[in-house]
């Protein structure tokens, strides 16, 4: 019979938050994508994209939409389109480790681990902000 092990409370907090946000992220990514594949409200028309998806990202966007992509504007300014809605799910999946780390930092009685998790979270947030700007 399995013996009882002692699991770190910060691990349990991390696991609980990760489970919830991963499920939400996958649903938010897949549901609009199904509509996108069915031809509903496409920002990147699939019939046109297929002529250019062999190109590097810069050339792809120039040829398909006539734009240069910098930051997250292409997602947030076009949320009426199903493919951009699907990217919200990807963003949430990306943020899930960050939210889980913050939850774990809040639960740990050990200050060193709280600081380490907060440092990683700060780097995470900084990288998101910098990517949005540049």
């Amino acid at each position, binding site marked *: 019979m399995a013996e009882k092990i002692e699991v*770190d409370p910060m691990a349990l907090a991390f696991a609980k938050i990760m489970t919830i946000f*991963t499920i939400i992220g996958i649903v938010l990514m897949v549901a609009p994508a199904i509509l996108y594949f069915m031809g509903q409200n496409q920002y990147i028309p699939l019939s046109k994209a297929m002529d250019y998806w062999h190109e590097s990202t810069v050339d792809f966007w120039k040829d398909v939409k006539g734009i240069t992509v910098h930051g997250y504007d292409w997602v947030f300014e076009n949320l009426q389109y199903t493919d951009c809605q699907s990217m919200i799910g990807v963003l949430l999946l990306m943020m899930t480790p960050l939210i889980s780390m913050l939850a774990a930092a809040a639960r740990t009685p050990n200050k060193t*681990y709280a600081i380490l998790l907060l440092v990683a979270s700060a780097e995470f947030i900084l990288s998101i902000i910098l990517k949005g700007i540049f």
Partner: protein
Amino acid sequence: MAAWWFWPLFLFIFTLVIGIISPVSGVGGGVLYVPLATVLTPFSVDFIRGAGLVMAVTSALSSVPYLLKKGLANIRLYAVIAPIMVITSVIGSIVGLWVSNALPNGKYYVKLLLGIIILLVFFIMITSKRLEFPEVRDEDVDSWSRKLGIVGEWYEPSLDRIVQYKIKNLPIGMAMFGVIGFVAGMFGLGAGWANVPLLNIVMGAPIKVATATSMLIITANAPAIGIYLAKGAILPVVVVPSILGITIGARIGAKVAEIIRPAFVRWLVIGVLFLAGVLNIIKGLEGLGYLPHII
């Protein structure tokens, strides 16, 4: 020319197969996906790397909660490594996209480098040992691990008892994880092929702990997804069928692996990986004009 839906359908079936054979062979899905999809599909290596990274992170996010609750994934080790890996994976993804977009023929340099990395993975896989329960004596534990109390325990059914473990060589491990994060971000590869031997052989974690903690560490590559998204390198047409395929395939594969796990499947997959590495090198050299077009 095939209709647009052919390629997402192909990606779905392709990743479904990868998902099934990955647990059976013990070779990570992400490391198979990027080099093979680069060779087999018409999508730019940028989109494949973006999808590969989302796939690796999503697979890790799905399995980590269970591994944490079982005591197999060590969150203390993660807390020490995450601040390093977050930075290096982001730098790796910036460098990777810069090489393929800013340099003339950049995408061929990326293919060439990817092929070389895949051959490195191949050699690590065929040469590295797996230590079930490495012995870490008290005097082997480095001062950082000791001060941070990086220890753990889990219930091992094969022994019918709780196994406790300690970690050694933390400073060396941290430096090496920095390099691994860079490579993972640059090529969109899941880094289990490097994390597991490092945790197991260098840092003395038991193989089950090394495998589980590796999954946890892969989630620290998540910020690199933002780099690909901010450069427009993540497209639903590539990402969604790939994630659905690998998720469904992995569930089937886990069941199959419980019943059969023939050694030849592992060697077959490692052989395919070797072939994918060689093909990427050839395609890179062709694109750069060092080889005539042969494939």
